[in-house]
């Protein structure tokens, strides 16, 4: 069943929203009710400061001092009730570097307090509190924070609870906010570089370029989450990350615009202008609000990308196109939800869901694009294979044609040679032989041995000429030619000819020389009959048998002794010819007549 298009669209949006809600719920997972949330503290800008103010957490202290580096929070904690068990303090993410002191004891720290400002934006921190540290009445905890002026100063509510369950929570959150983001960042970097390589080869296909820029930018931008010790001075590190963080959504917008076929020169110019602007602001803004402004701008861009994806998915005619509604709606929902966080409204934990959602989306898009690229490669390969096959077929067809042409050429050579021979013989030897005969006839010697010899020579000449006529494997044609030659002679000798020739199978091996051999054998048989047999009837039969074709010449003459010396030599000659044809010759002679059988193979031996 195909879903109704409207239903399909709504369904995709609902799924997108559900996914985004699920992701935010995971990220916002808070300790259970058995834990104590420490939501009130005394805040000061330095440990010795007497002017401490009571604040509710989460609290951003950058509002109180734009160029301060340190902040100091003091918590007063009642001892835990119930059975004694190992307790711990859990910080969902402190913005920057933090150090904890409990009843004067140092609990631990995240990041360096001397060198460059560290980053623990979404890094959950866990500090176990040894049971011996607890006092029965009041316990005092200090949280020291350090942030560069360009960074935000921020403290969420710490949680106090059993170490076991907080450790589990810490592990899960660490996995989600750090490991997953790190992994996706690495994937983005690798895929982005692959895309860049493809784009370098195919600069005309902007989709690769946009997505490559988006993924690589993201891979750099996410360092602000995953790297706690910056590699460069903040003056370089912060602008670099900010520019990358802006470049990623700009490039994503470019990609979406390309998908929507809005990818014009104007779009590209706009994107570069925006990047340049961001870079300028990030580099030269000394005020310390850059990060917040950037966060708003970046999230605004992601929101726009989500809206465009939704728009395109909504218009889409194909199912695949409509699927854009899913990432579109998720992106819109998550960007909206993250807005308060990035604009520093202290209502949420500092854990933007886009940090996970965007790389997921980028990886998915890249995967699709690479899949398409690989498919196009495969298509090309298939096309090549097809082409190869075609070429092979054409080649063999050409070869076959060439062979046919060659065969025709050979046949033509034979025919033209035959014509030349006939012309020469006609005007030359043939004419002379005929004249000689006429001369002998004129002088009354037409029956002389010389006249007979001349006739034999003339007959053989005719056989040679006949044998050069292409017969296309048809033995009946050969026999017919023979009949034409021999019948007037038989008629003159008053010998009746019975012609019993069936249709015969094609003998592929019949060429000029084999035809000449057959004609000569038959001629010899008939000549013998004319000369010696004193027959009145001659039967010529031809029929096909299983593997052979037989030609039978039978007369009703007086026969001859096949073993006599004179006959023997002639017969030996005939048999030899028959053997050369791959056949045999059988002669059966009696007083009632002679039968000569020429047996030829149906196929060449």
């Amino acid at each position, binding site marked *: 069943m195909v879903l109704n298009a409207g239903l399909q669209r709504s369904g995709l949006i609902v799924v997108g929203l559900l996914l985004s809600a699920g992701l935010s719920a995971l990220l916002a997972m808070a300790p259970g009710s058995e834990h104590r949330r420490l939501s009130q503290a005394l805040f000061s800008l330095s440990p010795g400061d007497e002017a401490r103010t009571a604040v509710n957490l989460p609290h951003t202290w950058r509002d109180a001092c734009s160029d301060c580096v340190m902040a100091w929070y003091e918590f007063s904690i009642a001892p835990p009730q119930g059975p004694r068990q190992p307790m711990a303090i859990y910080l969902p993410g402190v913005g920057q570097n933090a150090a904890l002191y409990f009843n004067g004891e140092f609990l631990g720290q995240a990041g360096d307090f001397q060198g460059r400002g560290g980053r623990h934006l979404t890094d959950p921190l866990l500090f176990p509190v040894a049971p011996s540290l607890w006092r029965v009445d009041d316990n005092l905890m200090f949280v020291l924070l350090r942030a560069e002026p360009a960074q935000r100063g921020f403290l969420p509510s710490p949680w106090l609870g059993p170490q076991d369950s907080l450790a589990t929570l810490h592990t899960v959150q660490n996995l989600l906010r750090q490991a997953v983001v790190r992994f996706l960042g690495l994937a983005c970097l690798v895929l982005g570089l692959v895309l860049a390589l493809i784009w370098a080869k195919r600069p005309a296909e902007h989709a690769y370029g946009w997505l490559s820029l988006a993924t690589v930018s993201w891979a750099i931008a996410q360092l602000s989450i995953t790297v706690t010790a910056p590699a460069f001075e903040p003056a370089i590190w912060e602008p670099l990350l900010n520019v990358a963080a802006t470049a990623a959504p700009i490039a994503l917008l470019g990609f979406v615009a390309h998908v929507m076929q809005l990818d014009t020169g104007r779009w590209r110019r706009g994107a570069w202008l925006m990047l340049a602007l961001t870079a300028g602001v990030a580099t030269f803004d000394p005020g310390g609000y850059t990060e917040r402004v950037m966060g708003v701008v970046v999230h605004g861009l992601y929101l726009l990308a989500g809206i465009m994806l939704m728009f395109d998915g909504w218009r889409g005619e194909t199912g695949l196109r409509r699927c854009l509604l899913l990432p579109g709606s998720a992106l819109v929902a998550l960007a909206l939800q993250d807005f308060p966080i990035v604009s520093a409204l202290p209502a949420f934990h500092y854990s933007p869901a886009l940090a996970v959602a965007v790389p997921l989306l980028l990886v998915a898009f890249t995967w699709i694009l690479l899949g398409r690229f690989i498919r196009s490669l495969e298509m090309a390969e298939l096309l090549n294979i097809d082409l190869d096959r075609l070429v092979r077929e054409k080649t063999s067809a050409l070869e076959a044609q060439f062979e046919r042409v060659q065969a025709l050429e050979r046949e033509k050579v034979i025919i033209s040679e035959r014509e030349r021979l*006939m012309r020469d013989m006609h005007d030359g030897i043939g004419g002379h032989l*005929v*004249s000689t005969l006429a001369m002998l006839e004129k002088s009354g010697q037409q029956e002389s041995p010389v006249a007979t010899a001349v006739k034999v020579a003339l007959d053989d000449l*005719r056989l040679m000429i006949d044998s050069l006529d292409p017969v296309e494997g048809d033995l009946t*044609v050969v026999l*017919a030619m023979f009949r034409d030659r021999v019948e007037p002679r038989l008629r003159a000798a008053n010998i009746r000819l019975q012609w019993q020739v069936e*249709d015969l199978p094609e003998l592929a091996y019949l060429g000029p020389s084999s035809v000449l051999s057959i004609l000569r054998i038959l001629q010899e048989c008939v000549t013998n009959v004319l000369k010696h047999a004193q027959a009145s009837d001659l039967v010529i039969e031809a029929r096909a048998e299983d593997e052979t074709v037989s030609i039978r010449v039978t007369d009703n003459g007086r026969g001859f002794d096949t073993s006599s010396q004179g006959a023997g030599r002639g017969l030996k000659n005939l048999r030899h010819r028959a053997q050369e044809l791959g056949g045999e010759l059988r002669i059966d002679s009696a007083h009632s007549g002679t039968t000569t059988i020429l047996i030829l193979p149906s196929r060449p031996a």
Partner: protein
Amino acid sequence: MSSHRVLIVEDQPLTRERLSGIVAATPGLALAEALETFSSAAAWLESQPSPAVMLVDLGLPDGDGLDLIRMSRHLDPQPEVMVISVFGDERHVLAAIEAGATGYLLKDSAAEEIGDSILRLIDGESPISSSIARHLLKRLQPGTQAAATAPGANLTRREIDVLKLIAKGFAYAEIAENLGMSPHTVTSHIKHIYRKLQVRSRGEAVFEALQLGIIEAPR
């Protein structure tokens, strides 16, 4: 009934003498003239009443016997033309038939055979050999280009049957029996086929001339 006049054009003296002797000795035939050259024969055909039969050798020293045959087509009445051949091969014979001949003679045939076949030709019976039949079949296959310019030149089914049997070596009488017709019908088929080859060759000539632009197509 008066004897049929026979013209012989043959450059070899011995053959010419022999043929002259045979014609003269055959009852019903009379030798009109025996000539040696193309030019003398052409002049003779122009000046003398047309003979009943012309025996002509193709290889004349001063011209082509085929041209003599073509010339004879314009005479009235048209003589029967036999081409004199040593081998009776299809190259010679078909070219002669295309030019207008209706028969062929083997130079060394026995005297009676020669006289007999001249008389039979006058009677309407054209000789044909199996290989000539085979080449005729090839030449007159329906559907060639010339068929369009000479529609009358296509063989009928019956004619094709006759040619096929001849090509297989059957004699007229055997063919007549096989196809259920009289021997006379078989011979008249042959004559028709010869005429068609002539028409066909003219058709081909016209076709080629049209192709070459030598003549203009009728409008």
